[in-house]
């Protein structure tokens, strides 16, 4: 293995270059960074407009964000958009008016937010264990999401496209008669994609969080990125070896994107709460990535043990599939 590994690595790197994977990764890096820096953080993220009907003028010192209306009908009309929240204090006790979002937790949040604007000075105090401004929070959030998407989807496609090329050329079968360790064939590709993903992660993090904040979270982020990169590369490897052509692979890719990663994004991004999501392995990887960006770690030893086991099992599965592919008709 020692003798041939550098050759396999160089050959895979040349294949990677010819498949333009690195250009794709560079393009993604530029696109994501431009979007984060020039669009996302400048988006007006005022959440729910709050309207107040207070005919007796009993509420003094309300937040300047609150919009006063003159009639109850007007208040109801403003809240009919399904987004805004109204407060009716005509009967002294504040009564919240809104169109329900359909999600109980979101409705609670909207009501609490609206009521908090009635007396902004009496805000609670909390023990601050870290500091985030709104922009930094947004940067961390969107960067973690883009990175997760890039590693889960684009990396997965990248390795598969290289392997399909090798399959089409028939050279995988040639390796069946060479004195080559099959593990070296797999590890070489994993190493290259891991390296590429880690460089991508480092650049994306530092560019979009800034050098200081980026370097601060980078070790934890790199660990999560490494885990996700290895898992996705092995899944991509297995699918590419097992499926006959790229068309079927693309179909599988769509199924993966729609049915596997979408629920993860929905639960991770909104306040929708599905209990079954705890059994979804990608959800834990997504949250692991997000927590790494916010420098909070909820993952324990069992998480890392499960990831390690998954990587070993996937590696064995890929080894088995590769042996089968090498034995195909010569």
């Amino acid at each position, binding site marked *: 293995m020692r003798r041939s590994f550098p050759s396999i690595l160089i050959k895979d790197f040349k294949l990677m270059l010819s498949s333009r994977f690195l250009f794709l990764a560079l393009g993604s890096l530029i696109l994501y960074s431009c979007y984060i820096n020039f669009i996302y953080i400048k988006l007006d993220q005022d959440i729910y407009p709050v309207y107040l009907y207070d005919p007796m003028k009993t509420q003094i010192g309300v937040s300047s964000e609150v919009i006063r209306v003159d009639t109850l009908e007007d208040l109801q009309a403003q809240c009919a958009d399904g987004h805004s929240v109204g407060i009716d204090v005509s009967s002294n006790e504040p009564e919240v008016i809104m169109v329900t979002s359909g999600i109980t937790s979101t409705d609670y949040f909207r009501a609490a937010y609206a009521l908090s604007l009635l007396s902004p000075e009496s805000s609670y105090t909390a023990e601050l264990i870290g500091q985030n401004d709104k922009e930094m929070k947004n940067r961390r959030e969107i960067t973690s999401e883009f990175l997760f998407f890039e590693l889960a989807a684009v990396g997965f496609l990248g390795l598969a496209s290289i392997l399909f090329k090798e399959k089409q050329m028939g050279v995988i079968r040639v390796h069946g008669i060479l004195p080559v360790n099959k593990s070296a064939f797999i590890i070489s590709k994993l190493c290259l994609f891991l390296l590429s993903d880690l460089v991508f992660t480092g650049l994306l993090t530092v560019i979009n969080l800034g050098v200081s904040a980026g370097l601060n979270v980078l070790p934890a982020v790199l660990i999560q990125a490494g885990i996700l990169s290895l898992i996705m590369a092995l899944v991509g490897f297995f699918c590419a070896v097992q499926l006959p052509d790229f068309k079927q692979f693309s179909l599988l890719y769509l199924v993966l994107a729609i049915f596997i990663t979408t629920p993860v994004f929905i639960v991770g991004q909104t306040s929708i709460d599905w209990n079954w999501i705890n059994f979804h392995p990608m959800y834990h990887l997504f949250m692991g990535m997000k927590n790494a960006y916010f420098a909070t770690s909820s993952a324990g030893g069992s998480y890392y043990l499960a990831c390690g086991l998954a990587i070993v099992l996937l590696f064995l599965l890929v080894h088995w599939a590769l042996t089968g592919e090498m034995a195909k008709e*010569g």
Partner: protein
Amino acid sequence: MIKVKDLTFSYQKNKEILHGLTFSVSDGEIFGFLGPNGSGKSTTQKILTGILSGHEGEVEIFNQSATVNLKEFKEKIGVLFEFPYLYSNLSALDNLKYFASFYPVKNRRDIYELLEMLDFKKDYLKKPVASYSKGMRQRVSMARALLNNPQLLFLDEPTSGLDPSGAVLFRKIIEEEKKKGTTVFLTTHNMVDADLLCDRVAFIADGEIKALDTPKRLKEKNSNHQVEIDYLYLGKHTTATLEMTEFNGGIPFPYEEIISIHSKEPTLEDMFIHYTGRGLT
């Protein structure tokens, strides 16, 4: 070199592909393995090259079981596939350097010498394989098979995709390998290759060896011992077929000029059909 006894193999339960093959190949012999598609010759070759495991029966190569020390075994064999499997984005030189890296340095042959021997166009040495003709790719594939100076060479349709002069060159190279003591296991549909190159041939059909002998003896065994003579008599072109016994005392009929005399010996293909009941395609 190769000893195979009662070799059976099944891809699925109750679907046996090979039904107890028994044959042996001596050191330095060119052994032809002839059969139609689906006859089991590729499966046999995969078992012999160590790609496929799970067979029953004995397979002994280099005086040891084919499954023992696969790495050392693979360092001693060379395989030419029917199709030229190469990295199309790399040049011939890069392909051969890559494949050579798997073999011990002491076994490696000089890539430039190999390509020169195979009459490879030097202008294309550093161009990507994607720009090569099929014949050029086949030459690079042959160079790959010979890279490690193999003691045992498996060739699958070696002259496929080559023009007549290329086919002659390949046959010459195979014969030179034999002279060096290399054993050659040749799988082919091409009866000309088999007839010209092989010391012995085995006809395989439906997973069984139907006949095994030298091409000459196979033909002799089934010869009808007839001679066909084309001649001119009274200004007219005539053809006569004689039994060899009739021919012993000279030509037993009047003639003005003999145009040609041919023995009506069967071809190897005739023999294949005779033993297997079908053609090679």
